[in-house]
């Protein structure tokens, strides 16, 4: 029976979720973008209004399914449905926005995954932000799940960097699973 591993890619609008999935996926990203009407939150022309989807095949029919969840708060209701089935969460934060506030918001929404320690953080546009801002993200994460959360400064367009972030998530989940049954793997 093929297995599927669901990995969520979340973050505020403009953090690079769609781009990140494109960097990881073996198939063209199935994207549901529409004109951005929330220009107060971000100036980009298009934004994801439902889900982005990409996948990585593992052989024997097994897959890692990558779901990018929309950044606007009006879609929050969708996230809890996905969270229960997910192996883990890749959270992308825009260093030039308010990454600490965005982190707090997404930690609340994905509290279960954060508690399980199934969380990694990619900080985009880190080269444009001050060191203090990155330190604030580290400090805000210090108490999550009682363990160190990977925080990588990355470019969502770079496949190698995105793969490293995904590998860290999987390794972290499996390290914790050494002491408890693996969650999020669907038969």
């Amino acid at each position, binding site marked *: 029976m093929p297995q599927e591993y669901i990995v969520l890619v979340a973050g505020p609008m403009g953090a690079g979720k769609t781009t990140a999935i494109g960097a990881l996926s073996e198939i063209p990203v199935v994207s549901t973008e529409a004109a951005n009407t929330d220009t107060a939150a971000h100036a980009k022309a298009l934004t994801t209004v439902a889900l982005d989807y990409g996948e990585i095949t593992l*052989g024997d029919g097994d897959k890692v399914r990558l779901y990018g969840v929309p950044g606007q708060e009006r879609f929050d209701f969708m996230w809890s449905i996905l969270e229960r089935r997910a192996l883990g969460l890749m959270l992308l934060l825009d260093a030039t926005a308010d990454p600490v506030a965005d982190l707090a918001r997404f930690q609340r929404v994905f509290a279960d995954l954060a508690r399980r320690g199934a969380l990694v953080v990619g900080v985009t546009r880190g080269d444009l932000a001050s060191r203090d801002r990155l330190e604030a993200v580290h400090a805000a994460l210090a108490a999550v799940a009682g*363990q160190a959360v*990977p925080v*990588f400064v990355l470019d969502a367009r770079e496949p190698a*960097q995105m793969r490293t972030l995904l590998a*860290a998530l999987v*390794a972290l989940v499996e390290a914790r699973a*050494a002491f408890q049954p693996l969650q999020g793997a669907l038969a």
Partner: protein
Amino acid sequence: VHTTAASDLSAAGGAHRAPALGLAVAGLSEPQCELLRSILVVLEERTERPWRLCDTAQADFVVRTRDAAVTPPPHALLGLFVREGESAPGPECLAVALPLRVMALLDALNAAHDRLAQRRPGAPAAAPAPDDGKSLAAALARLAERRFEHNLRVRIVGVGTLWLDVGARRYGTDFAPVRLAAALEQHRYVMTALAPDAPELAVLRAEGRALEELLWQVGLLSPWERPDRDLTRWRLRRWPDLAQWPHRSVHVPLCAMLAARPAGLAELVAGTGAEPADAMHLLHACVLCGLVEPVPLEAAIAPVAASAPRTSLFERLRRRLGL
């Protein structure tokens, strides 16, 4: 004209070093010869091979002033001391500037060594083994472990210059970042302490890179000499930025295990299936960067399972994505 006295060629070098080369000089004053002897002592471990002053007949490299008459043996290289204001010799002749300076002499001796090696391809060359404790990485690791607080300029022969501002936690180089690992493996370098107000440090504070990025590579490249390393468990406080810092895929599950639970060296090896050297270097790098903290041994820790199964999702992804 003064020609230096012979010294014991056979006493050169440590166990791992190739035999010494002979240096003869002519035309120097006695104070200049004294200075030369002192510099050779300083350069003992810094040149590709050690050099000893000797008679001209025994010399591999003979350096003279323009007004000194000397007949070098056929196998020897000839060099020329060049005083300020004198014209430089042709490219076939190795020049050594007067007054004598450490780095100029270091460059000349290494250039002479390289030319001699080309002439005698079968001659023994210094081939320092990795992790012999004498690389630049090992030296920086020892300094970091002692909480060294001085700012440094490190001239790395054949590579360039590395600056460290320990207070500002920055470093910089005048060579490409991709050459840093090769630079850290070098055995020929000279460290100089810099005053806090040195002008090059101002540039470093504005444009330098995070010191932890350097220490990470230092840890991965150098031996870990901490006496209690096998008796301590470590907990990961902060992940290394693996998206930016050079690493190998095995470092990811090692960090994950340290994040999930405190572990010692042997436990890391058992829990991840990593090679002991990989686990040791990873821990070393994390210690130097302050990414891990020791955990008291009395803290109860569940036993470590056997090596990670080869069919783990991480392993499958690693193979699929070519990590």
